[in-house]
């Protein structure tokens, strides 16, 4: 029986890890694959290959450059904020001009409420389906995976670094809306919805913070339920990672979890499309918090 070794460098590195190749820990995953080839003789030869995959799996150190903000990050955050300010301005100015204040304000509140729901749905989808090779969102799935493994890392990211990906999405979404609509009620909704989505990563980071290190105002807003609380979000970071997905205010978490809304969706997707969500299986090591390192990194 012929045995051959095949070494792969695959796997694109996890987002949190520096791209300048500096693994402090190297894990090697070895899998067996069997192939059957036929030869001129009647009996097929079965070859077993050992496939060695090297994967960079070390958590980022606190001075890791991948945690720092770059000018590109800052530009995207600035662009996102500009579109938000423009939308808010349209809402206020349009509202004043039309003597409307209640409707735009209510629309703004609706934006805040629905942003929480939207954050939960998106988070649920990314946590449960796809992987790093999924088109469009593969990098995000990988980032979420890294976050589950090393949740404390988010508190080390600089502001623009943390928000720039969402800021880019907001820029591309809100800019056309700014140009297309002048209605103060529409912009009342858009400005708050988009603000909450864009800054959800900051709310998320605060939810991973320690009380003593957070600004008192942030702690107060968390305690009031205006922002997602540290305790509630901490519940999400426990196996099987299948609850408390919302990260703006967290107000929808109780409703969604008690009504089993995501469980229902997961069942429907399973029976209709045959896809199993990750949360149904025992979480594998790639998605589970690495507790050994947490005390040294925190």
């Amino acid at each position: 029986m012929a045995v051959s070794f095949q070494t792969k460098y695959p796997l694109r590195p996890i987002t949190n890890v520096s791209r300048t190749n500096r693994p402090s820990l190297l894990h090697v995953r070895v899998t067996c694959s069997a192939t059957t080839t036929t030869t001129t003789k009647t009996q097929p030869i079965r070859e077993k290959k050992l496939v060695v995959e090297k994967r960079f799996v070390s958590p980022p150190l606190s001075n890791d450059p991948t945690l720092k903000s770059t000018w590109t990050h800052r530009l995207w955050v600035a662009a996102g904020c500009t579109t938000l300010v423009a939308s808010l301005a349209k809402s206020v100015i349009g509202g004043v001009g039309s003597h409307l204040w209640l409707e735009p304000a209510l629309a703004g509140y609706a934006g805040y409420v629905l942003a929480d729901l939207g954050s939960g749905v998106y988070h649920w989808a990314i946590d449960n389906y796809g992987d790093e090779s999924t088109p469009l969102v593969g990098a995000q799935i990988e980032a979420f995976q890294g976050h589950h493994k090393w949740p404390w890392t988010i508190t080390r990211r600089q502001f623009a670094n943390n928000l720039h990906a969402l800021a880019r999405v907001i820029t591309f979404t809100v800019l056309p809306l700014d140009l297309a609509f002048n209605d103060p009620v529409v912009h009342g909704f858009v400005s708050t919805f988009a603000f909450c989505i864009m800054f959800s990563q900051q709310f998320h980071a605060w939810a991973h913070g320690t009380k003593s290190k957070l600004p008192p105002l942030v702690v107060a807003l968390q305690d009031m339920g205006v922002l997602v609380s540290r305790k509630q979000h901490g519940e999400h970071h426990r196996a099987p990672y299948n609850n408390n997905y919302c990260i703006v205010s967290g107000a929808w978490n109780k409703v969604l979890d008690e009504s089993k809304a995501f469980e229902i969706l997961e069942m429907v997707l399973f029976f209709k499309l045959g896809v199993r969500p990750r949360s149904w299986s025992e979480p594998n090591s790639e998605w589970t918090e690495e507790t050994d390192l947490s005390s040294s990194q925190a």
Partner: protein
Amino acid sequence: MASSSSFFTFSSQTTLHSHLHRNTFLTKTQFPVPTKSSESNFFGLRLSPSTSRSPLSPCSFKSSIFAKVNKGQSAPDFTLKDQNGKPVSLKKYKGKPVVVYFYPADETPGCTKQACAFRDSYEKFKKAGAEVIGISGDDSASHKAFASKYKLPYTLLSDEGNRVRKDWGVPGDLFGALPGRQTYVLDKNGVVQLIYNNQFQPEKHIDETLKFLKAA
């Protein structure tokens, strides 16, 4: 939130008509009409006779048209393969009460909870003289792995193609998007004495069936 207080009566079609004339007005004023149609509801639907007058809602009227195995009827026999690939017939269990529970699929959260709950209460079912059978559309290999992983002491049957599920009229949920979760209790003569449906509170199936068996 199972409403085990919701009671509906299913009667044969010959008596249905007379009930409808008498009871329709009562139904509308006194009893809530379920939002879902003939199909099951999520919150627990216990189908058993009540001693008092039994109101019929338009929805339960529709349900009796579609349900093929009703309370009071003899359950139709079937032969399905168990987790070891051995054919098992329902008639083999005549002479003792049987709890037949239809569940969506192996290795899904609700079904796992339900299976483990039946496992944990299995001694109580045995003490009541009853046998437990779980049925889903998964194949024997899947059942074997499921039973082995969770150490299930009872029989799982493979209803490939969901033929028995259809024959018995187990209603689906979410307009058929999900296979229903429905449990039947058969007496020692093979007659259905209790039907309980609850998709998202699987452990309640054990509570309700044990309660019934103990009271019987």
